[in-house]
């Protein structure tokens, strides 16, 4: 029972209710402490010098003048850091990204850092560092980067064949099954289309920030805004040659991450500065640095081929997916290739992912990383196919949707899944019957995300007054403390208010994987249930002791120990109060690899209005339907649905990294990189479906990421409907939409 993760289908008293979050008051009064809100006695201010060139050899860095400036306590370059050249590739990549060694690979790449008594002195010191660059040819476009003769970003990278010439294609991966060419042979209609998406940033409002302190004794502490204190601890310790147990990482409140805070950027540098200066160092990125040197997701170029029979059955599907990885190899094309066809049951299917190196920042995860671009290409083509067949796009999707038992294009066979129910809900939704006005159009699209479980650990302590402290190691990115407290209270049978959830530091709890992959509530929820069950075992033992009976005759129900033949039960509070005399403190613990994260599906409906004079698009109505497995706290599930949709809307319509011919990022600020503001959006309607995940006691699936997957395609389908021309390039900014409308008019106009 204790560690059985099977779905129990129990009736909930607390799970599913909309309680107030325990960290709420701190967050509305300004008391909550984020990355940049901590200080230490004797603290220095760190600052980083960054390359103004997209690609350059660093011939020499002269730091002497900066070092001599009064108030400067440490200056470091790659020479002060371990050299992993020729060693383990990922260590080399991560550290090289934090601090360039010999070559600057993108505009904004760090080349040196200082720590000084105040920010002004640190800034002045940066200006005194002289870097001798030899500028090299660069490439920032995915399609240009794979052409013969393109500048090579990483001379060491050769695709598969070690004897081949260096290339910008770091890896090629293929997924699928069946005979794709034979499948196309059976098709009555084949649609081929190419798509492009521009690079976007996660756009968390809180820049990367940390406070690092390392002494000559090798002990260190790091306060940092992160999605994964344990991962940051492991990376930083390994990169700097420290023992993991000697570095304590505490996660601050996190001001948004969306995947961007799953990677180290400034943290190893702050620690290295602190070690050299022997003083605490606070290092905070400016917004410009956030854009130039952290985050972004891949720019992509994707070709899709889809074949169907006249009765509406997809018989073959193929996709070639080129994902920009930035300056270092990643797995982004592979993830895109895995996610591409996951919504459908297709006999002959293939997707090929290409990892393309560019002189752009190292690509980081962004909420369901790689899936939104894949869905944009696939779901646009699926709608085109429905149109070509004269079928309703929802019916066409339903006819081809994956079901329980379908073998997914990326390998596994699905258990109970939510794609069909979300489409059925869309079909019935009043939004689908609402009338469209002039210049308005409607689009529908589906989305999929894998979800993740992973290593998880939780401690649950029962205090002598009968209240409960729950310690988890997954960072709370937006309501997790409330959800996990609900789960602990549910399992123990006590009021929600009697549980306090604490996010543990790396010295206080065993390893926890990051808050990513929509795993926070799924995996820490599972660990919390197991820890509570462990505590209940203890509580039963104590009750049995008090009664002088065998523990197997004691059961636990509604927060009380009960035994046959005993008229009176013992409450958790009574057992807790007696604990000093019945064996001491009572606590529960669990450590699991939370397998069985249920896959997640969503279907979105979007109405837009396109101004044919300006090409400007306004989203006028938006509906998200998604399977949550079980919505532990519905408010925050809705919040995830709405937030993902809003990010998708920004991606679809506005957001874009604009690089100049010189390879420099031209819009590293919120004025020119415009994320949706309040007046850009309508209310975002949500419908939560609950198809229990059989591999979680409460049926929970992750909910955080899937909501960003359908919007690009849903909006593209809506804009194409409204404008009367198929949009294949995201963002669908006014100039692009206007150009498409004009081109289509010119095409339709009678010639001669």
């Amino acid at each position, binding site marked *: 029972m204790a560690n059985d993760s099977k779905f129990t289908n129990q009736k909930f008293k607390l799970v599913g209710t909309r309680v107030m979050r325990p960290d709420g*008051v701190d967050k509305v009064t*300004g008391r909550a402490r984020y990355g940049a809100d901590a200080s230490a006695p004797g603290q220095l201010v760190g600052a980083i010098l960054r390359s103004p060139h997209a690609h350059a050899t660093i011939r020499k860095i002269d730091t002497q003048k900066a070092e001599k400036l009064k108030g400067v306590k440490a200056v470091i370059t790659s020479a002060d850091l371990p050299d992993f050249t020729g060693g383990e590739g990922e260590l080399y990549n991560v550290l090289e990204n934090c601090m360039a060694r010999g070559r600057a690979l993108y505009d904004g790449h760090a080349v040196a850092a200082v720590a000084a008594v105040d920010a002004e002195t640190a800034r002045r010191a940066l200006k005194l560092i002289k870097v001798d660059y030899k500028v090299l040819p660069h490439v920032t476009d995915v399609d240009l980067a794979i052409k013969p003769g393109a500048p090579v970003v990483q001379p060491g990278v050769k695709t598969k064949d070690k004897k081949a010439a260096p290339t910008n294609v770091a890896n090629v991966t293929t997924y699928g099954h069946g005979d794709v060419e034979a499948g196309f042979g059976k098709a009555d209609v084949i649609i081929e289309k190419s798509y492009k998406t521009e690079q976007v940033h996660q756009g968390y409002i*809180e820049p990367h920030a940390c406070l690092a302190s390392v002494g000559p004794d090798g002990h260190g502490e790091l306060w940092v805004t992160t999605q994964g204190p344990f991962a940051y601890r492991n990376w930083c310790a390994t990169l700097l040659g420290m023992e993991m147990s000697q570095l304590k990482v505490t996660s601050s409140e996190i001001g948004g991450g969306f995947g961007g805070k799953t990677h180290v950027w400034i943290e190893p540098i702050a620690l290295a500065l602190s070690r050299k200066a022997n003083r605490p160092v606070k290092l905070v990125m400016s917004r410009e640095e956030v854009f130039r040197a952290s985050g972004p997701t891949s720019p992509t170029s994707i070709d899709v081929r889809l074949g169907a029979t006249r009765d509406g059955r997809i018989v073959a599907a193929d996709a070639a997916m080129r994902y920009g990885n930035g300056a270092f190899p990643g797995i982004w094309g592979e993830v895109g290739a895995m996610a591409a066809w996951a919504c459908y049951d297709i006999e002959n299917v293939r997707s090929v992912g290409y990892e393309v190196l560019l002189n752009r920042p190292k690509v980081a995860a962004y909420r369901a990383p790689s899936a939104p671009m894949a869905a944009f290409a696939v779901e646009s083509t699926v709608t085109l196919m429905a149109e070509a067949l004269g079928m309703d796009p929802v019916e066409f999707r339903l006819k081809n949707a994956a079901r329980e038992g379908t073998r997914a294009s990326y390998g596994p066979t699905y258990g109970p899944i939510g794609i069909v129910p979300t489409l059925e809900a869309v079909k019935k939704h009043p939004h689908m019957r609402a009338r469209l006005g002039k210049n308005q159009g409607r689009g529908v699209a589906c989305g999929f995300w894998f979800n993740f479980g992973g290593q998880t650990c939780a401690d649950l302590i029962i205090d002598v007054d009968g209240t409960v402290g729950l310690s988890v190691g997954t960072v709370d990115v937006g309501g997790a403390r409330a959800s996990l407290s609900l789960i602990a209270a549910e399992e123990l049978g006590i009021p929600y208010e009697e549980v306090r959830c604490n996010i543990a530091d790396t010295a206080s709890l065993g390893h926890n994987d990051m808050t990513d992959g929509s795993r926070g509530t799924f995996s820490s929820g599972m660990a919390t249930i197991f820890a509570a069950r462990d505590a209940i075992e203890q509580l039963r033992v104590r009750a049995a002791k008090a009664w002088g009976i065998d523990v197997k005759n004691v059961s636990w129900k509604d927060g009380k120990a009960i035994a046959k033949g005993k008229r009176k039960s013992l409450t958790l509070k009574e057992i807790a109060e007696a604990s000093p005399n019945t064996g001491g403190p009572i606590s529960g613990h669990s450590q699991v690899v939370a397998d069985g994260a249920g896959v997640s599906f969503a279907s979105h409906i979007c109405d837009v209005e396109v101004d044919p004079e300006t090409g400007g698009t306004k989203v006028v109505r938006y509906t998200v339907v998604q399977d949550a497995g079980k919505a532990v706290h519905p*408010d925050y599930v*809705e919040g995830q649905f709405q937030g993902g949709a809003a990010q998708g809307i920004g991606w679809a319509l506005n957001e874009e990294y604009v690089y100049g011919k010189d390879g420099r990022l031209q819009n590293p600020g919120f004025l020119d990189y415009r994320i949706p503001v309040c007046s850009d959006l309508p209310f*975002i309607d949500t419908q939560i479906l609950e198809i229990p995940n059989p591999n979680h006691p409460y049926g929970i699936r992750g909910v955080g990421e899937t909501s960003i997957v359908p919007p690009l395609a849903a909006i593209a389908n809506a804009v194409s409907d409204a404008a009367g021309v198929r949009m294949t390039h995201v963002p669908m900014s006014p100039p692009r939409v206007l150009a498409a409308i004009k081109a289509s008019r010119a095409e339709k106009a009678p010639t001669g």
Partner: protein
Amino acid sequence: MKGIAVSTTVNGDAVEFVCDARETLLDVLRNHLGLTGAKEGCGTGDCGACSVLLDGQLVCSCLVLGAEVEGREIETVEGMADGDRLHPLQKRFLEHAALQCGVCTPGFLVAAKALLERNSNPSESEIRYALAGNLCRCTGYDKIVHAVHAAAGDLRRQQKARKKRKAAG
């Protein structure tokens, strides 16, 4: 570097500080006065996370110099609650789950307060435009707009009750 001595009022308290001429009001609040509720999201006036009221006017404190606030009145998120009683906006933000990560929340609360002080019954559209200078990346603004709308109702009811009491007393 020569410091500039400034006397001002923050959340009703008389405050004195010495700052560098280049330091912003946000730097002063955060680094000299220990008020870290206002956040630096951009430093260029584009995100609104550092919103404060300056003589009742909504400003981005990253665009105001510390030296400019001599003799003026500053209100930050730390001054919104009345002792242990939360402001209706703070209460409604919690009830409506209008925050996820919460880093933009102080700025939104201050901007919403500025709106409700000049318009006690704003429409959805008025709320959306009044808050368009504040970026939130988590919520899609949906629950924020609902929370502000609800708080506006609370404040109107409070005002009505006050008037009634005044008339009666």
